[in-house]
């Protein structure tokens, strides 16, 4: 069995067990790091430029994290397998003029298993009907979000509907028909798609008891923004959903696992095959207890790319698998004179 297959088989077993003690995580993380150094030339060169060899790493938290922007360069794909063996590629969102990050996979077995087991960690009951406010994976094959929704489809409900149309409109009639059946519904979409739904609803729609929602992804590509508390007030007003019936998912195209939280003000938790650190970029060291810094994610399910990812999100760490998300770093946006500084629209 090839080293890649051996590691993948071992990881799949860990995902199924749902437990990964620290020493096992560390041992696996270091083996994956060595494997990625050997098979991922772009990452190998990056680590060499940082003066880091496998011998220099004695614990998982010393593994160099690659910035998400590194996924944006087609000439240096972030892959730990021969690129000609890729079977799937997910792209980050962006306009045609922007460079989009690409996460390549030789197979999606590990990726999909991570999605399923991350969800199972939540221990949620199955609903009667799943309503997706995204397009189905077949319509947007490069969207990791749509693909995740597709993997979740058979898990969350006995039947489902995808109500985001090709023209960008939402088929709210389908949702209204589901509500009329008085069985629990699970709604899943981006925060922006939920705003669109709320705009479409001319009067409140009381979801049946036991219904839930999962929102994710923020407001990418739009000019709309809303504080989370305001968004959740709309969930209550428009759909009758209490905040503890709403889940927020945090992940990104460059990762293979998901972090979830319930309601407002609670921390996100990752599955056992992940770890996080929050780094103060001024010092390069971990932020002090309770202080914000940059989120670094160690995701063993990223076997085929790079396991350690430096995000551009600011967070406060609570443990090595949980954090409070503060949000996207405003400095991560392109900026010049005035572009970043004036955050408030004139009233």
């Amino acid at each position, binding site marked *: 069995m090839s080293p890649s297959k051996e590691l993948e088989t071992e990881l799949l077993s860990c995902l199924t067990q749902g437990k990964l003690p620290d020493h096992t995580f560390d041992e696996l993380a270091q083996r994956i790091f060595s494997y990625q150094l050997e098979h991922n*030339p*772009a990452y190998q*060169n*990056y680590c*060499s*430029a*940082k003066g880091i060899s496998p011998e220099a790493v004695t614990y998982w938290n010393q593994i160099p994290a*690659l*910035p998400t*922007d*590194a996924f944006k*360069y087609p*000439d*240096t794909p972030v892959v730990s397998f021969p690129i000609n063996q890729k079977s799937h590629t997910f792209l980050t969102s962006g306009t045609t*003029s922007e460079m989009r990050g690409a996460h390549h996979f030789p197979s999606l077995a590990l990726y999909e298993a991570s999605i399923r087991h991350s969800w199972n960690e939540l221990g949620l009951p199955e609903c009667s009907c799943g309503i997706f406010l995204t397009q189905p994976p077949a319509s947007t094959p490069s969207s990791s979000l749509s693909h995740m929704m597709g993997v979740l489809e058979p898990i969350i409900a006995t039947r489902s509907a995808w109500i985001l149309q090709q023209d960008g409109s939402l088929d709210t009639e389908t949702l209204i028909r589901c509500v009329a059946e008085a069985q629990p519904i699970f709604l899943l979409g981006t925060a922006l798609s939920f705003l669109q739904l709320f705009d479409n609803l001319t009067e409140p729609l009381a979801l049946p008891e036991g219904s839930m929602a999962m929102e994710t992804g923020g407001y990418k590509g739009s*000019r709309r923004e809303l504080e989370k508390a305001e968004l959740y007030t709309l969930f209550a007003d428009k759909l009758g959903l209490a905040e503890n019936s709403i889940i927020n998912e945090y992940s990104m195209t460059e990762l293979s696992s998901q972090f979830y939280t319930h309601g407002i003000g609670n921390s996100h938790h990752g599955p056992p095959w992940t770890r996080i650190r929050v780094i*103060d*970029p*001024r010092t*390069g060291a971990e932020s002090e207890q309770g202080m*914000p*810094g*940059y989120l670094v994610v160690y995701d063993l399910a990223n076997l085929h790319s790079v396991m350690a990812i*430096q995000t*551009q999100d*600011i967070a406060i760490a609570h443990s090595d698998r949980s954090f409070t998300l503060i949000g996207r*770093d*405003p*400095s*991560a946006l*392109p*900026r*010049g*004179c*005035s*572009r*970043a*500084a*004036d*955050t*408030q*629209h*004139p*009233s």
Partner: protein
Amino acid sequence: MTCTQERIQLLTDASKHPVFAQFVGELSEDDLSSWLAAELGNANALDHFSPHENVQSKAIAPNHILHIVSGNTPHAAIQSLLRGLLLGSHNTIKIPSSGSPDLVSWIDSLPEQLSQLTITTDNLDSVDWAAADAVIAIGSDRTIESIQKRIQPHQTFIPHGHKLSIGIVTDASEEAASLAARDVSLYDQRGCLSLHAIYVDESDEGSALDFSRLLADAMEDFANHTPPEPLTVSEAGAIHNFRETTRFLAANNDDVGLLESSENLDWTVVYQSSPTLELSCLGRCVYVKPLPPNLDLLGPEARHLSTVALHPFEPATAEKLSHLPAHRICPLGQSQSPSLFWHHDGFAPLASLVRWKDIG
């Protein structure tokens, strides 16, 4: 309202205050009179009717100017307010949500006759909007766009949107590096006049790669005598991300090079063979690139150019660059110190605000 000469005197006296002078420099009566004369025809154009060909004309200042300013640096806001004060207008300044303590300190340094012409607020109401004869907006293009939607037909609108500046070096010497380091480092690149990239003419013996090393040394020297302001987590994160992404590129590509201050985030120099102009993440991070034979290759970001700083500065060379979208071409080392007489983003700052009355 005071007459023009009184306001000139008040501003001249005020400019002796160190806080005032820190942002504007010390002003003389001649400076301000000449400025008015250059823009309005004569220094008393706001007080009297003066001959204007076959009519008599008098400049009418806006009674009320609304300044909506950004928080990146106080300089643009202070220049905007200075213009309003010289014209004798009432000025309402919308302070950004992040605050602008330097701007507030500058206003506090004004004598009473001038400070009573200024009001600061962090929240504009409909009365503020309705009262404005002119609106000057400094901010992101998105902010400018949203402000523009509120402008009424009778209101003068002066927008200052997203801008950045570059340097062009045809003599890639240590002197050029030192001048470039000043233009990059001052105000930690927060202003429109801050250089994001230095283009090096390689047609003779110059080399952008070699110049990047000279610039790195000069950036270190500048940081030693003028260290950057302390960074927020967000600012430091942007620099860290910029460095690590560049490190990844440099490790995999000979066309990219990374030079950085050690043990801190004080400065970063990135050599790139691609001529495409890219935004720096700010915080004294600058690109060094070869000057392309065709400046169209600078790409779409060039349309936001404010200033091109040139070394050595020769008017004939500057004129050859005047087809660029930048409204100002100046000597390298002076990008952050525009003349009182400059046309800010192409606007004559006083003349754009006044209306005229004619007799005859």
